[in-house]
């Protein structure tokens, strides 16, 4: 009797888990399947069914001919913008985080604790509170409406995160290693470049993935500080989907949404373990 009950519970457990998993997959399945259908098949058929007539036309359109704002350029230039934004922003904020983490853990300084607390809180602020003065600053610096300006903004508001990651990692770093390097005459940069950084691969990977995902997915700064030459992909996608002119080309929108999702999905699939660690570190546990 007990055995039948526990067997039944086991089956119920799997049914619930697999059912929930299917619901979690559904939106991306719908995106992909409908991006490969002609438009009238979406209107007359249903979202779940596979295409009767497979077509790549929506992808071509989303990539290179769809109307974004005033021009029919597709998402391609904005995809490029996002990379031009993400790469320098990730590299810079990671380097700054490593340097800060090193200084905050290895040197005794007045205000070090207060500084770290100030950086930590900056992670949580609603960015609405800095939009107006930042817009003025970017205008003043001549960086308004440029990708460079977005790099600057994302680096500034990424410092809190990256410093947190490296600080926690270096706080747990074996002090004997650093002490013996000092005895051997390593100076400030010697310790950082020859001892700390070469042993930082795990935290560097976590930081890079975390920053890449965050900055790639960022929208508010993009929407506030860029123009149609410097839109990041999220803003361009939103323009594509919400533009009200003409027929709603659902299949093109689905293709566009998936194009915007591909880079971070790849990062997640390739390095899910580190992605999770980044999330957990971001939740200030650790």
């Amino acid at each position, binding site marked *: 009797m007990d055995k039948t009950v526990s067997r039944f519970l086991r089956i119920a*457990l799997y049914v619930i*888990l697999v059912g*929930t*998993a299917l619901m*979690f*997959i559904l*939106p*991306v399945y719908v*995106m992909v399947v409908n991006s490969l259908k002609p438009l009238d098949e*979406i209107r*007359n058929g*249903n*979202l*779940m069914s596979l295409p009767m007539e497979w077509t790549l036309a929506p992808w071509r359109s989303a990539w290179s001919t769809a109307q974004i704002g005033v021009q029919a350029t597709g998402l391609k230039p904005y995809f490029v913008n996002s990379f031009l934004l993400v790469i320098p922003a990730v590299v810079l904020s990671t380097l700054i985080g490593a*340097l800060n983490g090193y*200084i905050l853990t*290895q*040197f*005794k300084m007045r205000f070090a604790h207060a*500084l770290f*607390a*100030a950086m*930590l*809180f*900056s992670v*949580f*602020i*609603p960015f*609405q*509170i*800095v*939009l*107006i*003065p*930042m817009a*003025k600053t970017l205008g003043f610096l001549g960086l308004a409406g440029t990708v460079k300006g977005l790099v600057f903004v994302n680096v*500034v508001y990424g*410092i809190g995160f990256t410093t947190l990651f490296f600080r926690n990692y270096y706080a747990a770093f074996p002090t004997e290693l650093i002490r013996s390097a000092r005895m051997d005459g390593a100076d*400030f940069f010697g310790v950082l470049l020859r001892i700390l950084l070469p042993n930082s691969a795990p935290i560097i990977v976590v930081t890079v993935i975390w920053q890449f*995902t965050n900055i790639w*997915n960022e*929208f508010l700064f993009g929407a506030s500080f860029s123009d149609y030459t410097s839109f990041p992909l*999220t803003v361009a*996608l*939103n323009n594509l*989907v919400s533009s009200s002119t003409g027929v709603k080309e659902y299949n093109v929108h*689905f293709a566009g*949404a*998936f194009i*915007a*999702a591909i880079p*971070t*999905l790849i990062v*997640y699939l390739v390095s*899910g373990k580190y*992605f999770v660690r980044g*999330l*957990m570190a971001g*939740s*200030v546990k650790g």
Partner: protein
Amino acid sequence: MKAGFLPKLLITPSALLVLVCVYGYIMFTIYLSFTASTLMPQYEWVGTANYVRLMGLENWSVALSNLWVFASLYIVIAMALGLTLAILIDQKVRAESGLRSVFLYPMALSFIVTGTAWKWLLDPGVGLEHTMQTLGWSNFTFGWIKDSEMAIYCVVIAAVWQTTGFVMAMFLAGLRGVDSEQINAARLDGAKSWQIYQRIIIPQLGPVFISAFVILAHMAIKSYDLVIALTNGGPGRSTWLPSVFMYQYTFTRNEMAVGAASSVLMLVAIGVVVLPYLYGEMRKVKNG
């Protein structure tokens, strides 16, 4: 080791950037909220007039009550679902890592992508309603996203879908960290699994509940992208949140001072949730 000149010099740019671009800008925005700024910043002091006006604006009270509905449901559902999934996955199931990956992947997507996907799924013309009807349930209706009474619940659905996996991961880490000796002892005493969860494991997850709550609450208050992509605040203003209000008043209605005041209140709300939590975490760092 005492910091010499070089470490101090090298941390100065970061410290300055944070002091100016975070705290300086916050002060500036607070200042603006007490001025008569409209399209451009102006520096004429008007006292609390903007806050008084803000409190009287129906758009603001709508945004606040929407936030209240959205945040409470979002936090409760995401935590309940996340905890349930974590407990279910903790039963030594096959393909555990595969399931975890599936539950967590939405977190890798941008809210704009999530919003776009759910916008069409929830749209009665092409989405679930249409699909169910073509499958034969001709009476099936699901038009929440077009219904100003119900649209805010669509935002909850998409937001829960996006973050539940993350909450699950937090709870799972918490479950795995519970002392196994106590569990074994209880099991030897004949306690059933659900009793063990109820009496021993879940009470020990207090810190995870708090972390999850703080993170979800601060995400709810900040929520902007998802609403923009999913409903653009509509129908009407039925899915306006304070973040949408701030953007509208500052950048399209030329009421910068009112927009600034609304962002100050957003900061205060987040501060109330986050500061006690950070204070606790910092004390742990200091003592540990």
